[in-house]
C-alpha cells in the first residue's frame, strides 16, 4: 500500500476531511444554541443562565481548537498534495476558498478571541455581538467551502483557455445548486448533531440528579425540540440531492469529449471501483441512522409528554450514547458524496489521478504517516477533553470564571 502515492493521498484526504468534519459539525451545531442562550441570558441579565453559556461555550471552544488544527492541515494538504487541482482549476476552485479564509476564518477566529477574552472586559451586548459574528462566520465558512466542494461535483461558470479554467460567471459559481443543496442539508444535519450532543450531556447530568440552576433541564428540552424539528427535514434536504446528482455538469465537454469521458469512466468501472462499494456503505449508514433517529425523536416526544424527560433514568442513560448516530450519518454522507464523484476530481474535467501532485512514493508515505498519526492523536485528545469537560459540568469548564489563583500575578500587562 505504501508504494501507491495516489491511494495514500486519497486515504489521507479522506481521513483528515472526516476528522475535520467531525469537529466542524459540532461547531456548526452548537453555535446557534449558544447564541440563543446567551441572548436570553443577556436580555434577562441572568447570571445563572450565563453560567450555562460558559459551560456550553467551553465545550464549543475546545472543539473549535481541533476544527482549526484540522482545517489548517486540510488547506495546506490541498496545496501540497493536490496541486493538479489548482494548476487547472485554481481560479475557479481556489477563489471561494480565498474568500472563505479571509472573509470567514479571519473574522471568526478574531471574534472568537474577543469572545473568550472579553467575558469580563466588555459590555454584555458587545459580548453577545461577538458571538453573533462567530456564528454567522461559521456558517459563512461552511457556505464558501461548499461552493468549492460543489464545484468539484458540478463544475459551472467557467471557460477553458489554454488548458486553464477561467471563471466567467461568478454568480453561477456562488449559486451552484450542488453547493446550496449541500449547505441546506449540512446546516440541517449539523443542528441534529448539536442538539443530540446537548441532549446527551444534559441527560448524563440529569441521570445523576445534577441540575445546577436548572440548566440541564432547559438544555434537554430545547435540544429535544430542535432535534424533533430537524430530523424529518433532513430526509428532504438530503433527498433532493439524490435527484440532483443524476445529471452531468452543464460544462461537460469543455475538456474531454463525450467518448473520452465514457472511456475514462468505463476504465474506472472495469477496475472494480472499490470506492463505489465504500460509498454505498456510507449511504446505507446515513439512511439507517436517520431511520433510528426518527424513531428516537418519537420516543423523546412521548417521554416528554409524560414529563419524564428530565427524570426517567432508563431513558436518560441511553440518551447519553445517541450522538453516535448523527456522527456516523455525517461521515457516511460525506463518504458517499465524495466517492460518488470518482474517478473524477472535477467531474468530466479532471481525473483524481491527474489532480494529484507528482509525488514520489517516499514523499507520499512521509506525508501520510506524519499527518495521519498526528491527526489520530489530536482527535483522540480532543475527544477525551470534550468528554471530560462535559462530565465535569459547569464548575470545571474551561471558560468557568478563573478561581482566584494565589500569589502569581495572573496576566502580564503592557507597560507602554
Amino acid at each position, binding site marked *: 500500500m505504501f508504494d501507491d502515492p495516489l491511494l495514500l493521498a486519497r486515504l489521507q484526504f479522506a481521513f483528515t476531511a472526516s476528522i475535520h468534519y467531525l469537529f466542524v459539525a459540532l461547531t456548526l451545531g452548537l453555535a446557534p444554541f449558544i447564541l440563543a442562550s446567551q441572548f436570553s441570558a443577556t436580555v434577562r441579565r441572568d447570571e445563572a443562565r450565563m453560567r450555562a453559556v460558559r459551560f456550553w461555550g467551553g465545550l464549543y471552544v475546545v472543539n473549535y481548537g481541533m476544527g482549526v488544527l484540522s482545517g489548517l492541515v486540510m488547506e495546506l494538504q490541498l496545496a501540497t498534495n493536490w496541486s493538479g487541482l489548482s494548476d487547472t482549476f485554481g481560479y475557479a476552485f481556489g477563489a471561494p476558498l480565498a474568500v472563505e479564509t*479571509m472573509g470567514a476564518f479571519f473574522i471568526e477566529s478574531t471574534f472568537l478571541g474577543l469572545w473568550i477574552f472579553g*467575558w*469580563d472586559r466588555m459590555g454584555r451586548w458587545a459580548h453577545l455581538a461577538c458571538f453573533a459574528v462567530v456564528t454567522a462566520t461559521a456558517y459563512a465558512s461552511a457556505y464558501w467551502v461548499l461552493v468549492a466542494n460543489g464545484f468539484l461535483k458540478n463544475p459551472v461558470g467557467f471557460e477553458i483557455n489554454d488548458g486553464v479554467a477561467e471563471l466567467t460567471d461568478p454568480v453561477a459559481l456562488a449559486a451552484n445548486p450542488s453547493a446550496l443543496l449541500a449547505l441546506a442539508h449540512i446546516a440541517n444535519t449539523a443542528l441534529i448533531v448539536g442538539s443530540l450532543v446537548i441532549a446527551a450531556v444534559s441527560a448524563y447530568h440529569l441521570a445523576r440528579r445534577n441540575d445546577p440552576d436548572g440548566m440541564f433541564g432547559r438544555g434537554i428540552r430545547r435540544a429535544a425540540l430542535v432535534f424533533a424539528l430537524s430530523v424529518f427535514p433532513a430526509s428532504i434536504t438530503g433527498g433532493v440531492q439524490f435527484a440532483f446528482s443524476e445529471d452531468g455538469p452543464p460544462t461537460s465537454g469543455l475538456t474531454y469529449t463525450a467518448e473520452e469521458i465514457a472511456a475514462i469512466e468505463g476504465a474506472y468501472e472495469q477496475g472494480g471501483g472499490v470506492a463505489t462499494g465504500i460509498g454505498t456503505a456510507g449511504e446505507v449508514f446515513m439512511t439507517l441512522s436517520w431511520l433510528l433517529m426518527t424513531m428516537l425523536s418519537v420516543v423523546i416526544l412521548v417521554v416528554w409528554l409524560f414529563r419524564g424527560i428530565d427524570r426517567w433514568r432508563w431513558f436518560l442513560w441511553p440518551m447519553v450514547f445517541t450522538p453516535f448516530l448523527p456522527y456516523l450519518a455525517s461521515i457516511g454522507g460525506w463518504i458517499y458524496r465524495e466517492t460518488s464523484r470518482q474517478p473524477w476530481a472535477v467531474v468530466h474535467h479532471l481525473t483524481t489521478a491527474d489532480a494529484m501532485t507528482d509525488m514520489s512514493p517516499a514523499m507520499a508515505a512521509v506525508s501520510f504517516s506524519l499527518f495521519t498519526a498526528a491527526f489520530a492523536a489530536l482527535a483522540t485528545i480532543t475527544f477525551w477533553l470534550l468528554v471530560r469537560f462535559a462530565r465535569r459540568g459547569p464548575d470545571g469548564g474551561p471558560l468557568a470564571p478563573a478561581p482566584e489563583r494565589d500569589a*502569581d500575578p495572573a496576566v502580564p500587562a503592557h507597560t507602554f
Partner: protein
Amino acid sequence: MEILAVLVLTGLVVGYFVLAGCDIGLGMLMPYLARTPGDRRRTVSAIAPYFLGSEVWLVGAVGVVAGLFPELKSGVIVELWPVFTALLAGWLLRDAGLWFRGRVDAAGWHGAWDTAITAGSWVLAVCWGLVIGGLLSGGAPLDPFSLVCAATMVALFALRGAAFGAERLVPPPGAEPRAALRGALPPARGGLAVARREAAVNPAECADVAGQATRVLARVALGGTVLAAGAALLPGAAAALERPQAAAAAAVVVGVAVAATAGLSGPRLSRHTSAVAIAVPPLLVAAAVELPVVAAPAGTLALVVFALAPVVPLMIAGQVWLYRMLRRPAPVSGFFA
C-alpha cells in the same frame, strides 16, 4: 487589479510576520525566559490571545495564494515541498500545545505541551527562514547563502519575541514586584548573567531577561545580515534576486533597525525596530524575486472583491478591537494557561 491582489497578499504576509513574530519568538525563548511553572504559565498567557489573531493572517495569505495565484502555489509550494511539510507539522504542534496546555492541571501535561509550543515555534521560525532563503536563492534552501538568510530570520523571530516579552511579561501594576529583592542586587547592566541571576530570585522579572536578550539577539541578527549581504555577492548565490538595489536597501534597513537595538539603550526601541526588521524579508521577496504571479482572470477577481468588500471593515475592526482589548490588564480568563 493585479497590483491590488499582489499588495493584499504582501500585506497579509507582512502582517503575519510582524504580528506572529511576537508570539512565535516568545514561544522560542520560553525555556530561557521562564524557569518556574508560574513563569511559564504567564508566558503562555502572554502568547495565547495573540496567536488567535495573528495566525489568521497566514491562513488568509494561503487562501489568497490558492484563489488568486494558483501558479505561485504550484510553483513555490511544490518546489519547497519538504520545507512546507515541516512548517505545517511545526504549526500543528505549536497550536496543539497552545490549545491543549491549559486543559489539564498537571505538571507533566503542562511540561509536555510547553515543549510542543517551544519546539513548534522553532520549527516555524527555521522553516520560514528556509522558505525566505530558498526563494531568494532561487529554489536552493540548503545553499550557504540561504542558510545564512535562514539563520538571520531565526534571529529576527527571536528578537521580535524578546521585544514582545520585555513588555508583556511585566506584571500588572497591582502585583507585588518584589522590588525589595531587586534593589538588593547590583543593577542589571552587566548583561544576561546578572539578569538571569536576578530572575532566579525574582520570578516576576522574566521581562528583564527578555529585555537583556534583545541586545544579544539584535547583535546576532546584525551579524547575520552582514554575512548574508556578503554571501549574496558570491557568484550565483542569490540567483533569484532580480533587483540588486532592492536587496541592498533591504539589507541596509534591517541592518540599521537591528543596530539601533544592538546598542546599550535597552529594549525600549526594540518593539519597533524588530517589527521593521522582520517585515523586510517578505517585502524583499515580493519586490526583488521574479515569482510566477499572473493576473487572475476578471471573473475570479470580481468574485473575491464583491464577496470581501463588505466584510473588510469587520476584519479590521475585529483585529483592532482584539489588540486594544488585550492591552488592558485584567484577570486571566484561564482558558489557555
